[in-house]
């Protein structure tokens, strides 16, 4: 295990150091399921409301969702980059980076300005993320994912490691379930994280109400098909037609109709339940 970099010598942009308070890293797959993306955003928003600084890596997928959630929650978020702080990677996140800075957050990097993205830089970045945070929450991670490197580094540095459970059928939850089995804290909502950090502030509704807040409350009777569509694993139109014993043309039509209404969306050659996002809610 390489040692974490000297945190005092980080290159930074924006407001550094961040305001006093606990820092939580939210990390996960760059290709999360809609469930994972919604969870990352939700947790980040709730943590931000509780005054926690959300740390993540500005990558695609869970990282971006975490930053966005923190911004929605009106909080400060820190992006730990694997490039120089003057090079936003992926370039598509240029605007997100601007928003992070505008909201009083920071972009930080152990690499000098002008450093281009290199594969070998990212594990080192993950270490820094762990070093900067009081706890690391892994949302979704396949086996061997970079998020697990962050979790391992956090363990070595005696930081809290927590993980979000998912479907046992989903490859994206294999990594998080392994963490939980090995003793990581189970995360069902932001309160679980706050409790570990020793902060008891009430920021959440009744946790039992959480599913409806994620959009799972859409009445199944509105369309019987919706009942068979998961928010984690894509199901193909063909599978639905078989399950429901309906003509494929009709199933395709009803899926399109649901897609137009924003209730489902395409995901990996199939359909998944579209979860309402933190920013869409009041």
């Amino acid at each position: 295990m390489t040692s974490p970099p000297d945190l005092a010598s980080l290159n930074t942009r924006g407001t550094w150091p961040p305001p006093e308070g606990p820092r939580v890293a939210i990390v996960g797959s760059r290709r999360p399921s809609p469930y994972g993306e919604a969870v990352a955003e939700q947790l980040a928003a709730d943590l931000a409301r509780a005054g926690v600084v959300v740390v993540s890596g500005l990558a695609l997928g869970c990282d971006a969702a975490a930053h966005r959630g923190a911004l929605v929650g009106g909080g400060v978020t820190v992006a730990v980059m694997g490039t120089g702080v003057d090079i936003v990677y992926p370039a598509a996140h240029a605007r997100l980076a601007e928003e992070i800075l505008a909201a009083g957050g920071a972009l930080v990097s152990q690499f000098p300005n002008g450093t281009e993205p290199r594969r070998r830089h990212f594990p080192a970045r993950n270490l820094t993320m762990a070093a900067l945070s009081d706890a690391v929450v892994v949302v979704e991670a396949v086996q061997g994912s970079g998020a697990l490197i962050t979790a391992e580094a956090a363990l070595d540095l005696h930081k809290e490691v927590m993980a979000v459970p998912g479907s046992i059928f989903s490859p994206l939850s294999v990594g998080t379930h392994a963490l939980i089995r090995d003793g990581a804290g189970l995360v069902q909502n932001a309160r679980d994280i706050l409790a570990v950090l020793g902060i008891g502030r009430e920021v959440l509704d009744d946790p039992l109400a959480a599913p409806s807040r994620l959009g799972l409350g859409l009445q199944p009777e509105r369309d019987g098909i919706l009942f068979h569509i998961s928010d984690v694993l894509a199901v193909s139109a063909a599978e639905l037609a078989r399950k429901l014993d309906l003509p494929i043309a009709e199933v395709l039509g009803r899926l399109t109709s649901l897609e137009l209404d924003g209730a489902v969306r395409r995901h990996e050659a199939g359909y998944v339940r579209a979860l309402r996002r933190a920013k869409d809610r009041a």
Partner: protein
Amino acid sequence: MLATVDSCVLAGLEARRVEVQADSANGEAKFALVGLAATSVKEARERVRSAIKNSNLEFPRRRLTVNLAPAEMRKEGSGLDLPIAVAIALAESGGRAPTRSAFLGELALDGAVRHVDGVLVAARCLRKLGVERAFVPSVDASEAALVAGLEVMPCRSLAEVVAHLRGLAPITPQPFTSIAPDDIVGLVVEHDLGDVHGQEEARRAIEVAAAGGHHVLLSGPPGAGKTMLARCIPGILPPLELDEAFEVAQVRSLLGDLLPGRPLDWSRPFRAPHHGVSMAGLIGGGSGFALPGEISRAHHGVLFLDELAEFQAGVLQALRQPLETGRVTITRSGGSVTYPARFTLVAATNPCPCGWSGDPVRTCRCTPAVIDAYQRRLSGPLLDRIDLQVGVRRVPLAELASEPRGEASAVVKERVLAARSRQLERQGCLNAQIRPSRLRHLATLEPASRRTLERWAEQKGLTARGFHRAWRVARTAADLEGAELIGDRHVLEALGYRLHDVAA
């Protein structure tokens, strides 16, 4: 003495008349061939000299000049061997060539008449030019005899031809090749949809494609059955019409690809070029006049491009013109030629470089950036021209062991045929070929279905082309159901095939 014999050279699907003049005059023994002959024609001198000698004919021991007129036109191919030899024989013996007759064929050194490519095309054009009798290689006689009003003389050897011309041993004309489609019934469906497990979505997509002449993209992991599905398409299409079979046969004739004795084939072509195919191989090319490529060999049939993302980008870009117009025009040193290329494109691709993105069991190891780059190679103008895009998944092994429950090709074909005849009756072409300006009249949308289509176009930022394409597919969905007005369910189904529309 001077003798003149008619022949022709090919320029794509057209033939140009060539007059072969032979003159033997007093002077030093010499054989000159003039008239802008390409290498293959210049070599005719050596073949003709030996062929004449070995046919027990006299080769002039005088000054011999052969002229190929018109002189400014470049001539290529070995088909001029026979007319040159006949002209020389006539010049030597003082005979006259029969009127309104043309000769075509390559000579072997022993005087045998050998096959040449494109006899069907040549015969059709010669007939148009007023020729009534064609002397062609006997192996190619059945294809020439497809042309109505042309008497075809099958030639086996130069000696036979000369004996015929001298009235010594007449050649029996080739009987007109039957074009009665009596062997249609016997067409074998090699790949039956009834053998396909699951894949309801893709099955339906190829049914819609076959019914409306739409192009399809199948996206899925290795072993999901994409190739099998593509191969099923010819079996749910109607057999070729006579004029279609004739067009297909002409392209094959140019490539020397017709079965002797059975030149017309009623089954739909299925071409599956490898992804390493060159531009010339796929689109057409070669020196002089371009020869037809795979897209023209797939005319009226199916062009299957497996591993679409692996094809050279330039080659894929070149598909755009034929996809839009059903024709391809290629310019080479000899001039430009236009070949027909109205095919149904069936493209298959993995969803990502490793192939397993979206697979329920195996995990994809590709990074988002790699997947993005992979899919971008497909996106844009080419994808915009593919009406039906569906995801194909691997069928669970347990299901593969059981009896497939899908409909057989014969059942699907009935619906396809009914839908096609509705279209031809209404507009004289398949739905995929309706021009945008005619869509409003030919593909009337109910108010609700119009709103749905517009809503989608707005949400997904559809291009005008994408909008029209979805509209045409909805027309086909309605035709498969026998509905005149396009209902909401037809539009909704059509939009379900737009895998690559993402929220704007």
